């Protein structure tokens, strides 16, 4: 079981992610924006972050950069509706170890999460 921080400005997406991860036995925390996510990460040091891209104030790529500055070993999987190849490329360049597209399915999320936690990474 891992401690996972879900970062998404959509409460619906957070609920879906929480259900998937908790049913798989993981412990879940939530943040609705980038700043809250950085504060929670500094406090809780979760094993993994499931991070949305399109958010107010700080977008997910900016949050990813800040997280990796705070902790160069931060394990981050991006979860987004943004299907652009360039977004996936930027995420990988920023240090994300997984990339999952919305709408989120249990299979895709758990595949990416399990691979990230195992240190292998998986992308859609």
């Amino acid at each position, binding site marked *: 079981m891992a401690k996972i921080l879900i970062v998404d400005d959509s409460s619906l997406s957070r609920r879906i992610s929480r259900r998937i991860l908790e049913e798989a036995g993981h412990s879940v925390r939530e943040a609705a924006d980038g700043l809250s996510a950085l504060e929670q990460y500094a406090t809780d040091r979760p094993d993994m972050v499931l991070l949305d891209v*399109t958010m107010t104030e700080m977008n997910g790529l900016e949050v990813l950069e800040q997280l990796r500055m705070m902790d160069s070993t931060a394990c981050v999987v991006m979860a987004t*509706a*943004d*299907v652009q190849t360039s977004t996936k490329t930027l995420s990988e360049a920023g240090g994300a170890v997984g990339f999952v597209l919305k709408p989120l399915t249990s299979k895709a999320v758990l595949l990416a999460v399990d691979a990230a936690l195992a240190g292998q990474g998986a992308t859609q």
Partner: protein
Amino acid sequence: MELTVPEVSAHPIANLLPALGRFVHGDVATVHQIFGGPISGDAFLLLDIDGAARLVDLLTDAGAPTKQMGASAREVLGEVGNILLNACLGVFGDLLQIRFTFAVPRLHLEALGSMLDSLVIGRDELSHALVVGTLFRVRASEVTGCLVLVLGFTSLDRFLREIENWAARATTQS
């Protein structure tokens, strides 16, 4: 979910109301996604209120569609719009080899005319709209809706040039 072959048309903004009136009437639900980059504008998913209620009902198994869009129904519609608009614009971005940035999607429930009056694309003067109308079929129920890209003069010009560039690349490769 199945989609029929989409009808694509372009219209000056002044003619957008009758063009969209072919798909929807009266009060509408729209999910707007302002996008930026080399081409910027306002993309929105447009459904009439009945269609929006039916779509929410089908996706949530609520049991009976209602036009009373509560917080939960709004969340579902917003997420559906977010996913459809990102898919549409993302494919455009990859095809045309340009990168879009997206603002957080916003849901609006209002009359079609009021919604069109409120369209804003920053400093770029409104010019034309690309309308992609289609029929969604979800579990044997039909919902009519359309995706609309509203572009200013500069973005429309760039959009057309990028499409020509893509067509040239595609024909060269084939």
